[in-house]
């Protein structure tokens, strides 16, 4: 069955951005000044919104990704 997941409410987007921002600050402490954090917030928002747009495309269980792996004989 194909499913399209509804888009985010704006509040949820803000929450996701904040969570990801906090994760980055935890992983890279001291790397971002106020200006950098604001740029980062904008970039994170764009990727959260892009993901929400993708969830509006109906996909079924049978819809596979473009191949990123091929099993093949390998010469070592």
């Amino acid at each position, binding site marked *: 069955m194909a499913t399209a997941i509804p888009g985010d409410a704006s509040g949820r987007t803000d929450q996701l951005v904040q969570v*990801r921002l906090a*994760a*980055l600050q935890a*992983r*890279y402490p001291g*790397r*971002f000044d106020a*200006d*950098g954090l604001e*740029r*980062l917030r904008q*970039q*994170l928002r*764009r*990727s959260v*919104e*892009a*993901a929400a*747009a*993708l*969830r*509006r*495309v109906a*996909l079924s269980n049978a*819809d*596979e*990704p*473009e191949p*990123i792996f*091929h099993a093949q004989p390998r010469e070592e």
Partner: protein
Amino acid sequence: MSDDLAFASIRELGRRLRAGETSPIALAEYFLDRLDTVGRSLNAVVTLAREHALREARLAEEELRAGYDRGPLHGIPYGAKDLLATVGLPTTWGAAPLREQEFPYDATVITRLRSAGAVLVGKLAMVELAGGMGYQQPNASLTGPGLNPWNPEAWSGGSSSGSGSAVGAGAVPFAIGSETWGSILTPASYCGVCGLRPTYGRVSRHGAMALSWTLDKLGPLARSADDCGLVLSTLAGADPSDPTTLPVAWAYRPEQDRSSSFRLGVLRDGLDQMQPAVSANFEAALDTLATSASLEDVTLPDFPYGEATSIILGAEAAAAMADLIEGGALAALTAPEDRVGGYAGTEIPAVDYLRAMRVRRLAGRALDSLLARYDAVVCPTTAVVASPLTRRFDDYAGKVRRLAIGSAGNLAGLPAISVPNGFGERGLPTGLQFVGRAGSEAAILAVARCYQSRTGWHQRHP
């Protein structure tokens, strides 16, 4: 040596070489000088490869004198975007923290061009890390903003900035660029030259900086569609070092292609939001094309092309540039926005990436169904001419900065060629693009040659 050499086509340079009117060494010295003066004045040059070039030119001269002719590129100088590994020369990726970077091997495209007798005269400027960190304005390279040969107060386009401006300024006959999401077609359009983005996998990426393994393509920028075909013929082909290369061979055989009776889909999406000169030049181009093609309005299948491309690019770039991100080297990049740009990609969930790849598959099928009905879909390459150096891209171009066809074409790995079709504000060129289904380079080149046989825009120069 006369200045008309600067803007001569590859075929014309080859004719002069074989007629004894010039020589590979003379051409190499001439274009080294052009790069050192005109090219540097446009911030188009990272490294002038003088010794390297003269060595290759001497060999070409000896071979041609001995009657050993390697083909149309033999003895022809060219420049390479500085993300292509070249033994003995720095390969900076346009990034200040990598200005000393060298590789002990050549990229496959460098090897193939050498085998064809072409002469590498310089490594050309580019936007740092091919723009993958999300630059928003022209000053985003260790060599400074790329300047436009038609108006040095305007940007050259990117990320193949030096490739576009050096060809446009007559500082090299052709150049190699790369495109992940617009980086060949945009500078080609802005600089008034031809740029060919091949089908994904047509040209080996071995030895090229990886920004996005599933989006990166290498291709030529040159004076004409015919020149692009000649160069692609040398670049194309399977390469064991790049498992994504297509197994089928490709050769440029223009004499076997149609020269009329083309079927073209006309894409008018966003035309009303484009600069007036871009729209007017597009309509004029359609009038020209109508003399040798049937035209039919089309619309793109409805998919979130830009969103899918941005998720895939963001995630793959964050992985490909992990060393620079983790090590903190991004902090030394030129553009402030690039110093944090890679981090956001590390937070893209795997399921979002995979969803983008699933949407990609559906979008690719839908696009192929559309494109199968035509030799090419035609539309403006960019909605605006090159932005002023002082403006942020979004502020200048607004919502039409990225056309859906650009996202769709790169997402689906489709070939496209941009050709000049007139001029717009501030004396800057506009471009027309032909997009074909995967593997249809011969068809889009034939359409582009047909257009150029009926117009003279590609023969204009600054």
